């Protein structure tokens, strides 16, 4: 379990890092290393060069913009902000409560202390919580390369299993998670084999309400398809007889693995979907009530 030989660079500026990546087809970015280093050790990945971005300046931020009313309001997370730092930010949790709800399910404290939230997004694991959360919240990722900068909306970020749409020479510099609008609510639940493991099934809900009535309801799923999936279940959620889980399952592909059968995963989707929807609606109504009394 020792990596194959590779060159190692630890540039001090973003420009140098981008140049290094551009010059090497086989180069890879190293952020927290919590996903990449195990792959290297098992020789499942053998990059020619590792471009360690941990010495780059100004990428460790967790910044909240606006008070949640405006379109550009939300949480901006730099490429070097660790899961633990995002989880600990009270401002981030106030702006977008789903971040902390989901992050508490990401791995264990020691891994959250090193692993970066942006790294998790571009690693694009359909079993990971944050890629799905970014999709559900309709956030985005800013990436840079020697060719310039661009913003990739969440809906366009995930290409396939463990595959993002970043070019090999691009560095994700910042992720943006929109603030939770007034009258909206979120919830997250997951079932894992052991505490902190990747989920067998994880489900998050985002609902918008007006006067206590649901106007939009979307549900995101972890570990029930190859890429993070978000399903709009507004109709089913508005109908007291509706079956939002059934609606969602039509768009999911729960698979068998050594930990769970596809039938069990589908069953968990049925159990968890109504629960998180109910929680999210409750959350939205609570927030509306607080908003009014404030």
């Amino acid at each position, binding site marked *: *379990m*020792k990596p194959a030989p590779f060159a190692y660079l630890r540039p001090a500026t973003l420009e140098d890092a981008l140049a290094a990546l551009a010059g090497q087809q086989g180069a890879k970015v190293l952020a927290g290393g919590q996903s990449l280093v195990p792959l290297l050790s*098992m020789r499942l990945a053998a990059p020619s060069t590792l471009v360690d971005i941990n010495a780059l300046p100004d990428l460790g931020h967790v910044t909240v913009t606006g008070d949640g009313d405006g379109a550009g309001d939300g949480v901006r997370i730099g490429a070097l902000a660790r899961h633990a730092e995002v989880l600990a930010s009270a401002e981030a949790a106030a702006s977008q409560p789903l971040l902390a709800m989901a992050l508490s399910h990401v791995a264990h404290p020691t891994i959250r202390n090193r692993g970066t939230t942006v790294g998790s997004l571009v690693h694009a694991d359909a079993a990971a919580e944050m890629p799905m959360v970014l999709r559900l919240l309709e956030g985005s990722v800013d990436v840079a390369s020697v060719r310039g900068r661009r913003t990739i909306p969440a809906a366009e970020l995930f290409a396939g299993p463990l595959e993002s749409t970043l070019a090999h020479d691009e560095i994700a510099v910042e992720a943006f998670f929109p603030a939770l609008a007034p009258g909206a609510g979120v919830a997250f639940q997951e079932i894992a084999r052991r*505490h902190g493991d990747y989920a067998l099934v994880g489900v998050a809900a985002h609902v918008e309400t007006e006067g206590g009535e649901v106007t939009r309801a979307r549900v995101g799923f972890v570990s029930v398809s190859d890429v993070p999936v978000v399903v709009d279940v507004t109709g089913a959620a508005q109908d007291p007889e509706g079956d939002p889980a059934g609606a969602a399952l039509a768009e999911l592909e729960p698979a068998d693995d050594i930990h769970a059968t596809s039938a069990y995963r589908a069953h968990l989707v049925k159990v968890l979907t109504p629960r998180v929807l109910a929680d999210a609606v409750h959350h939205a109504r609570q927030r509306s009530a607080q908003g009014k009394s404030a």
Partner: protein
Amino acid sequence: MTTKLFGTKVPRVEDQRFLRGQGRYVDDLLTDDPRLLHAAVLRSPHAHARIVDIDVSDVLDLDGVVAVWTWEDLTGPMAEPLPLLIPHPTLTHGRTQYALAREEVNYVGEAIAFVVAVDRYVAEDAVARIRVDYEYLEPVVGIDAARAAERTVHDDVPDNVGARMEQENGDARAAIAAAPHTLTLELDIERSACTPMEGRGTVARWDPDTSRLTVWSSTQTSTGVRGCVAAKLGLDLARVDVITPDVGGGFGVKVVHPWPEELLVPLAAKTLGRPVKYTEDRREHFISSAHERAQQHHVEVGFDDEGRVLGLNVEFWHDHGAYTPYGLIVPIITSTQLLGPYKPQNYRVVFESLYTNTVIVTPYRGAGRPQGCFVMERTMDAIAAYLGKDRTEVRSTNFIQPDEFPYEHGLIFQDGRELTYDSGDYPASLAKLKELVGWDEFEEFRAEMAAQGRRVGIGLACYVEGTGVGPYEGAHVHIETSGKVKVATGLTTQGQGHQTAFAQIVADTLGVRFEDVEVTTGDTRKMPYAVGTFASRAAVMSGSAIHLAALRAKEKALRIAAEALEASEEDLEIADGVVSVKGTDASIDLGTVAVLSNPLRYAFDEASKAATQFSVGDPGKPPVAEDDEPGLEGKDFYSPPRSTFANGMHAVIVETDPDTAEIRILKYAVVHDCGHLINPMIVEGQIHGGVAQGVGGALYERMAYDESGQLLNASFMDFLMPYVTEVPTSIDIDHLETPSPLNPLGIKGAGEAGVIPSAAVFAAAIEDAEGFPITAMPISPSELFELRLAHADDTTEATTRSTP
């Protein structure tokens, strides 16, 4: 003997080092030696293949590679198969692998080539450059495939059967035929493994100046490794020292020896004249060390209206993997220890031990007992369910009674001796367990929970564990002139707290201060006669030997002190390292007694002057009497007539989520009887660890082999060893002490106890919660969910019932 420390919770002396990260394991050794070389192993990617050709031509070109071995390069005994450690007459088709595969590989992970390089990175790069041509053969994976025998693992082993063994006491089949009630059960247990924190590891150094080989190995038997290394390398035993430093857990896997690397590392060190280190990595541990547990059982039982077992007939199939280096120990233990605390009037057991193209199967903590316990306890629960009786009542009916000891089962145990239980009080243990877990109040609790929409169940399981198997252990106790006591015993330590427990025994027996006792284990230079640490034997075997050796040292100390103090031996007592004449202030330090015990010509310090030739001795007699020796030492061995049988009972209350099928542990209770407790804290620690490991085995862990023999979960990402968050936050423990009559301290083993009843007790509790039979373990939420579906469709019971 003043029993000051025996029986008290003396804090473990080893924890200071371990908790501060100051433990020294094999991988920590020789790290500063610039000449140290590192080894890596090419392992088979196929479960079954013929090796057509191995091409190593690209390997030596690589900078930093020093040498590479394949089977072709081995000579003499090294080129022969590894030893079959424990032969048995019924093991008619025993097979062992070669240190490096010759012509054929039989499991994914089997060693094929051994590369030595300047560091492990280069060694692994080199391994990747070896090209092997394989002719792929269809593998045999799992017990069903082995039984079907459409293909065989070894060409010369028909039907994949390594051994078939049968034992019977009475006439079980006739008794079942005549019994008022009968039941048939089909039961399954899957594979798991020891997975110690530290994997295997070996370092060796050849000293050309003295022609001596020093081997450090993470093993449970240094003397065993020493014997194998000397034999395979053709060295005199006296030229080989094997030292076992700190070991990060063994749980059975490290009693197997010699591992290929345990021979190849010394061979390389001697050949290359440089020290060599091999440290197994986690993936290697999963695919090339040992597994255990997988068995299928077919049970027929006949019983009366009270639930008394009149006849029990068990047939089972044991998956022993690709080779049988450890003989039939695991299935023999299953077949005999299955009986637990019960006395079926007639018992027949027959097993087949089968080859599969998977990792070898050798003892893992519990060593065949968890399977036996699962089978017997499932049977007891099935009888209770059938008769509509309380499960504890059926057990009570079948218990061996306290006045029936020694109890002879009429079978032969794993050590080749009669299966005879020495002591126990099973009714008393059960009474304690019922109290501890709240057995009689459970229906009330169940109703309370049901009112909240929650589903709970309770289960119990009883076991008896043969511990302290022979043949022997020895000890050497040496009182130095400083008064410090140095103790050596040959078996090894993997974190059990031997330093503490053994020092407690010495401090009490000898009358010295605990702090003055230092214990060395697993070093063949200090104690070349030893067996090893396994089968819950260290306290019984070495503990007894140490006690006996300390008594000898004490005897001598009293004799010399009596002379020096001009008193009679009976009037002397030893406390805190001082011998004194009772009721007077005449006294002498043990250190001074040690000085006097060794007549000297030269005074090397102030104290030693007292022992020089013009100071001591009767000039008319030899300075050392004819039947005496210099020095204040005691050496003795303990070799029991047979094993001592500890026992215990576990109960668990679980909650099964009606929606998600998740399984939660609400309460776990243990009543444990290992005779006299040397250190209750250490025993409880062993139970805690065992229960945690048992939770893993029952609810999380399994070896997920696919049909082609690839292990799909060869990492801790997918092999689900429980985290601290998955084990019960508290375990209620109560002890019963029925001393063993077989050893001077009245003790029995405790090392494996905690893990034995896990599969049985969880199956019982989940069955109780769900209302349908649980016949296969481990069980995951996904499997429980699938069982619910199956039983919703089909409400008939899985156990077939019949009355003649």
